[in-house]
Structures are given as structure tokens and as C-alpha cells.
């Protein structure tokens, strides 16, 4: 089974500053990688995904993430955050091929953008 680590449980950052949310996973097998965002009292919305190809993937709302196989990491970045980016961010991993396509989630990072 996968272990997904999001080292930073809370990240406060000033508006228009850059941010990086870290995600590391344990697998030695091929994986697909995802970032989801959860706004208060809402469900999980897919921000971006890495399935194959370029290791730098771009998602919605100006976010991007880089897959680093040697470091088993998939860190999420945004060059300039907005107040509306305040939310919980979850990294998720799926093994390839896997049985049942289950996702393994990290514990989440709460991003708070300060005006």
C-alpha cells in the first residue's frame, strides 16, 4: 500500500506571494499523481494530474506541479496566490496498474492566504 506524506499541515502565505505545497509518496512502482482542492463545505475538485509525459503539469487556477521520480515527490506550486486560493489541498496517488484504481490520499495541507 502507498503512503502519501504532506509534510505541511498548515501553510499561511500573503496574497500575491508564491507558494509550494509538498507531497511525497512511498511507491517503488509506477504511479499516477493528483492534486485535489477542497473549499469549505464542498467536495474534492481536481486541480491537476500527472499520468505520463512532461513532468511539469499545469492545472486550473494557475497551479502547476512537478513530478520527480527520483525523489518520489509531486510538489504543487503557484507563483502568486489569491485570497480565493484559501482551501484544503490533498495529494493523491494511484498505483499503475492497480486493482480497483484506489487512490491513496495525504493528510492534506490547509492553505491560508493572508490579505
Amino acid at each position, binding site marked *: 500500500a502507498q503512503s502519501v506524506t504532506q509534510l505541511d499541515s498548515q501553510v499561511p502565505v500573503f496574497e500575491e506571494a508564491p507558494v509550494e505545497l509538498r507531497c511525497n509518496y512511498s511507491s517503488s512502482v509506477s504511479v499516477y499523481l493528483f492534486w485535489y482542492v477542497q473549499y469549505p463545505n*464542498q467536495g*474534492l475538485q481536481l486541480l491537476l494530474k500527472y*499520468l505520463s509525459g512532461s513532468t511539469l503539469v499545469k492545472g486550473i487556477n494557475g497551479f502547476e506541479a512537478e513530478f520527480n521520480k527520483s525523489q518520489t515527490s509531486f510538489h504543487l506550486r503557484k507563483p502568486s496566490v489569491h485570497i480565493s486560493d484559501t482551501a484544503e489541498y*490533498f495529494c493523491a496517488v494511484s498505483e499503475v496498474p492497480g486493482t*480497483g484504481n*484506489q487512490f491513496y490520499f495525504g*493528510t492534506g495541507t490547509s492553505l491560508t492566504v493572508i490579505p
Partner: protein
Amino acid sequence: EPEVTQTPSHQVTQMGQEVILRCVPISNHLYFYWYRQILGQKVEFLVSFYNNEISEKSEIFDDQFSVERPDGSNFTLKIRSTKLEDSAMYFCASSGTGTAAYEQYFGPGTRLTVT
């Protein structure tokens, strides 16, 4: 844009009662999932369902849980005799086939409160 829907948004039940959580996956998706998120904790996989049978389940998904696709559009999670520790947000997700099987779209969740 097609989306996964879930009903009810909030369910309150007494310990020992049966509950059924309902989901309508995206119409052309063939894989269906249930996850749960206990307050303040990470999202945990419960079960995946494909071709009218369970393809994988976690240790959490014991005999008290069952899933069903009663018709062509609904996907349900039943908890036979609820316990206090079943209180959580339950998310339904669905995905397509091929590599799209790994792109899971989540519903807004049902908050289950067991008293």
C-alpha cells in the same frame, strides 16, 4: 459540465440504525468508488465497483457495509448498523475506462452524523 451528485447532503442517524447514501455518477463512467473522511483526517478509500461487482475494498469496508447499483444511474452505500465511529463525510467518485479510469471525479459528499 457533468458532475457526480450525492444525496442527502447531511444525514443524522441513531447508533444501530441503517443508512443508505446515494450517488449519481457521471453518466458514461464505469468505475464507481466510495471514500470517507473523518473530521480532520485524510480521505480514505472504502470500495471500488466495476461491472456490477466490487473490484477492491479496504479493511474499513467490513460486513456492515455494502454497495449496490440498483439501476442504470444510482450507486448506493449502505451501512447496516451504524456506529458512532461511522460519523464522517462520505464521498462518491466515478471514472471512465483506460487511463481515464484513474481520473476520479468526486461528488460534494454526504456528512453522516451518528448519535
